């Protein structure tokens, strides 16, 4: 699983495909205060990144993927 949902935290791990956008969106709609843990994320599909940007969800962790860490993380913080 590339999306793992816990009570307070949503973990994105590995290569998250477009389908994860829906799962992530539902999880954030249920509880907008959930933090998104990106530490294990290698790659995010733009569909997933869009949800994070639109939700302005709090994020934590530095993505394992180089591209995400260098170019996406600062857009999310």
């Amino acid at each position, binding site marked *: 699983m590339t999306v793992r949902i816990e009570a307070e935290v949503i973990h994105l791990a590995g290569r998250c495909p477009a389908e994860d956008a829906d799962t992530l*969106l539902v999880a954030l709609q249920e509880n907008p205060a959930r933090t998104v843990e990106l530490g294990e994320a290698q790659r995010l599909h733009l569909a997933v990144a869009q949800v994070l940007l639109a939700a302005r969800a709090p994020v934590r962790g530095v993505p394992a993927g180089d591209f995400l860490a*260098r*170019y996406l993380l600062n857009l999310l913080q």
Partner: protein
Amino acid sequence: MDELLEHFLVEGRDLVAQAAAAFDVLAREPGNAAAIDGAFRAIHTLKGSVAIFPMGAAERTLHAAEDVLERARKGSAALDAAATAGLIACLDAVDRWIDEMARSGALAGDADRAAAAVIARLPGQASAPVATAAEAVPGWARQLAEGAEGTVVAFRFAPDPDCFFRGDDPLAIVAAIPELLGLDIRPADGSWPSLDLLEPFRCISILEGTSGAALEAVRAAFRLVPDQVELHRIEAAAEAAADPGDPAAATTLRIDAARIDALADGIGELLVAVNALAPLAARAEPLDRALAGAFRAAQANIERSAAELQRSVATVRLVPLAPTLRRLPRMAREIAAALGKPIAFAVSGEGLEVDKQIAEGLFEPLLHLLRNALDHGIEDPAARREAGKPAEGRVTLTAARDGDAVLIELADDGGGIDPARIRQAAVARGLLDADAAAQLTDAAALRLIFAAGFSTARAVTEVSGRGVGMDAVQAAVEKLRGTIAIDSTLGAGTRFRLRFPANALTTPLLVVEVAGDRYGVALDQVVETVRVDAAALLPIGEGTACVLRGRTVPVLSLAQLLGAAERPAASAKLLVTSVGGERVALRVDGFAERIDTVVRPPSGLLAGVPGVSGATVLGDGGVLLVLDLPVLAA
């Protein structure tokens, strides 16, 4: 070959085919808006792709064609037949240049002249606007470049809102930009929607940023979406700061074909190894029935999984037939023009997927058959009118799936092949004597055209007379484990039917027993198996024959053909095969099981043995020779 060029060759030919299909529609319905749109998009994208390579002539040609289509799209200038013909000529030229790129990585010296010639055929050339080379740099690009050191390329990428549904990931495209300096993702509408209104699978982002790489390199990263991106090079006096780029990210895995082949080979071996389990279960049976039962259940599971795995790998090897077939219409136009014969060439079924080996090996034989159909099949316009046919010759190529086989037909409405003339020519060339020729059925006589060195053309023409005969076509088809059949009606046309196994990994074999040994026979060489009373075998001359379905069929002893003695038996088991279109029965001692296995081409000592098409390793480690029936029975 350079990987980028390899990409381009595939994509470029794909776009040529898309544009060609649209032009096809436009030739019939000049005002078809969907076709104009389709052609415009394909040409526009193709223009973006060729710009990456030293193909200036192609870029100019496509730009001119795009202008014509753009005006037709806006309704300011309708497309007439001449305009469509001009567009097709442009596309043909580009297609040739793509071939040249494939061959030598560069365009020939006459490309500029050829480009000028095809562009001149387009309507409204005088009024066509000249391409604006340098555009003003817009404000957004300047803003992006602010603070950057040195010359940068600013990009604004507005992906199609539906692109996620096509499996595209704009973020992956951006991640592949070399020397990416900065990235911003903005909402296309100015603000992000609230979560309740957010549609997760609709792309609502615009991606902007800068790169320190050259304009061409950045453009290359966007080569799949050239119409969704704006690029501007912004000069700066300061020195460029080099930044190692993020490694290229791709959503599709491109794998060396050899690795897939190795995988396929491995699975073939696995299937063979699984074959060993059944005899083991049988051996366990008398000792412990429960164990034997459990053994068989396990065997069934392994077999099922192995077969599934084999199907998956076979699917990976499947490629669309389109890249092979779509090159033919242009060839047909060129050949027809050289011969001065008007023709209509239609292709259908290019969406069919076939094993990669077949897709690769099919082009040469098909081109040869097409050349023959246009040169020898289709008559001169005058002769056609005399015969009451339309002056324009019709050639159709269709590809279809037929059960486990792929069927490809090339049909023309030309003069047909005269079996009498074939017989005469074969006798004249010393291929067989007059008596033997007279005894051939018409169907068998037609097959003489596949004999080595046979050609009925009265004059060797520039188009077909290249020293490659129909024997080469047959050899190429057989190499792909295919068969070729001809139907021809004198005066009405000829149809070649090529049949290939859809799944080339394993061959279904029938195991037969002959003189105490077991041999494999490819199931696709077996027309039928029959059991007749020994009394039904009639001595005819020096040989034997029997009557099957009202026809007399020669019967040969497979044991004798293999150098052993025939064992007398009360009933005869016959394996009927087809040799050059004629049925021949081979007598065997018994039919055993059917197996699916990997047949290896003969090597070592076996390589020189006629009638042996290969060998396969059985589950018990034994080797089974696979016989080539038509060769043995010929």
